[in-house]
């Protein structure tokens, strides 16, 4: 029996900035309804990878298929159609600082689904409550929020339209451990209840174990290991072992000079 078409299928993806090779032939499949977590060292190209997937960065070479449809080199109209399937949490938040919090969260509802502003505001309040923000926060400006609150507003903005594919770039970084776990549960709920396909980047192994159905590790521009979350502890891959134990000793050498 033929396997169902993967939701996202990446083949031979390459991307360099000048002479610096960031992605050097990535192959990765993500099935519908799956929650894949990408781990890897700082600067290993995780953010660049998901920006390629959503089309913010165009690859030098390779193929990215969404629901079996090739998106590399796609025209603007098709790209706009595909974009509606996506929601993205940016690593830096990227909140619109000229709009109050609720308009940030409601933005996609108004632009993508044509929801009326009053209805969108009510929906925004619900999503804000789901990320643990009080109703008063809706009227504040992004600049008036703490770093962790901004992160949660961005998260709310990414999931408000209930997209089919959600990309989370470090959703729990900068949150306290309890709120981090609330966000973990929220991501799980997005996948289980809404049936979304999630692609999450994180450095936080505890969070990765909780939200992932599968884990992939990126190193030197390639996927060096991927497998079900249960197998991550017996991967037999020294790179993965070093990463999950967070040890400075191992095959991954950080380019630092000791003081």
């Amino acid at each position: 029996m033929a396997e169902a078409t993967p939701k996202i299928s990446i083949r031979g993806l390459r991307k360099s900035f000048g002479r610096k090779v960031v992605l050097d032939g990535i192959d990765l499949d993500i099935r519908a309804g799956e929650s894949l977590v990408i781990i890897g060292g700082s600067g290993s190209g995780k953010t660049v990878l998901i920006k390629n997937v959503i089309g913010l960065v165009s690859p030098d070479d390779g193929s990215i298929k969404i629901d079996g449809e090739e998106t590399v080199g796609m025209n603007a109209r098709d790209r706009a159609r595909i974009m509606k399937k996506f929601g993205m949490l940016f690593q830096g938040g990227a909140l619109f600082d000229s709009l109050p919090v609720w308009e940030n969260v409601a933005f996609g509802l108004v632009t993508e689904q044509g929801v009326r502003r009053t209805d969108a505001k009510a929906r925004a309040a619900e999503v804000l409550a789901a990320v643990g923000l009080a109703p008063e926060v809706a009227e504040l400006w992004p600049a008036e929020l703490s770093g962790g609150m901004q992160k949660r507003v961005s998260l709310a903005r990414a999931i408000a339209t209930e997209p089919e594919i959600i990309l989370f770039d470090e959703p729990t970084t900068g949150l306290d451990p309890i709120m981090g776990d609330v966000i973990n549960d929220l991501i799980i709920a997005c996948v289980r209840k809404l049936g979304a396909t999630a692609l999450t980047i994180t450095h936080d192994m505890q969070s990765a174990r909780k939200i992932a159905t599968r884990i992939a590790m990126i190193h030197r521009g390639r996927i060096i290991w991927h497998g079900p979350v249960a197998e991550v502890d017996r991967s037999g891959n020294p790179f993965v072992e070093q990463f999950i134990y967070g040890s400075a000793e191992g095959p991954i050498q950080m380019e630092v000079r000791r003081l």
Partner: protein
Amino acid sequence: MDFIAVVGRFFLGFLATSGRIAIFAGEGLGHCVRPPFYFRLIGRQMMDIGYYSLPVVGLTALFTGMVLALQSYTGFSRFNAESAIATVVVLSVTRELAPVLAGLMIAGRVGAAMAAEIGTMRVTEQIDALTTLSTNPVKYLVVPRLLAAILMLPACVFVADIIGVLGGYLVSTTKLGFNPAVYIKNTIQYLEVIDVISGLIKAAVFGFLIALMGCYHGYNSRGGAQGVGSATTNAVVSSSILILAANYLLTEAFF
């Protein structure tokens, strides 16, 4: 031969930039006529560009009209042509000084703000975020500014025309001893509609150039705060120069 290489590189860079700006302008204008239209944003930009520029434009016009009356008096009194002062003031103001000076003032005020705002959105990934929320950033950010500037610059210049003439009138009647009724009659007598219209057309073109440069430099800014800073500078400098160059071409066209 290094020198020729430098000149050549500069020239090629100039052509490449001109081409990029032309493509950007084409994209912006193309989106001006295709839905969706963000009326709320256009309205807000019209307030920012037009209404909030009125004080600075009004003061510029007032002092310019006043100086103009004094200076032309110096010249014209030498061959007993004082009666021409009113005409000189109104023609200079409407055809030339109001559009150019208002354009330059607004380039400093509005062009810089546009470049800084859009540039900050670029470097903090807000423009990428717009794309992921299925909103075309050119349509959302550039079109409202272009339209608002093209519409509001003529409005500001029309106000500047009136205030500039008023400045000349005040100086002429209080300091130079003109009869108010005669001054007003002289002002209107030789003024033609085309004098005012040509100034307003210039203003619309200047508005387009200011918004285009502000948006282009902001949209293409790179790196952090420093990139936004140089985008701001470039927006003001390039729009000012383009205003002066376009002013010559338009004056020749209306000559």
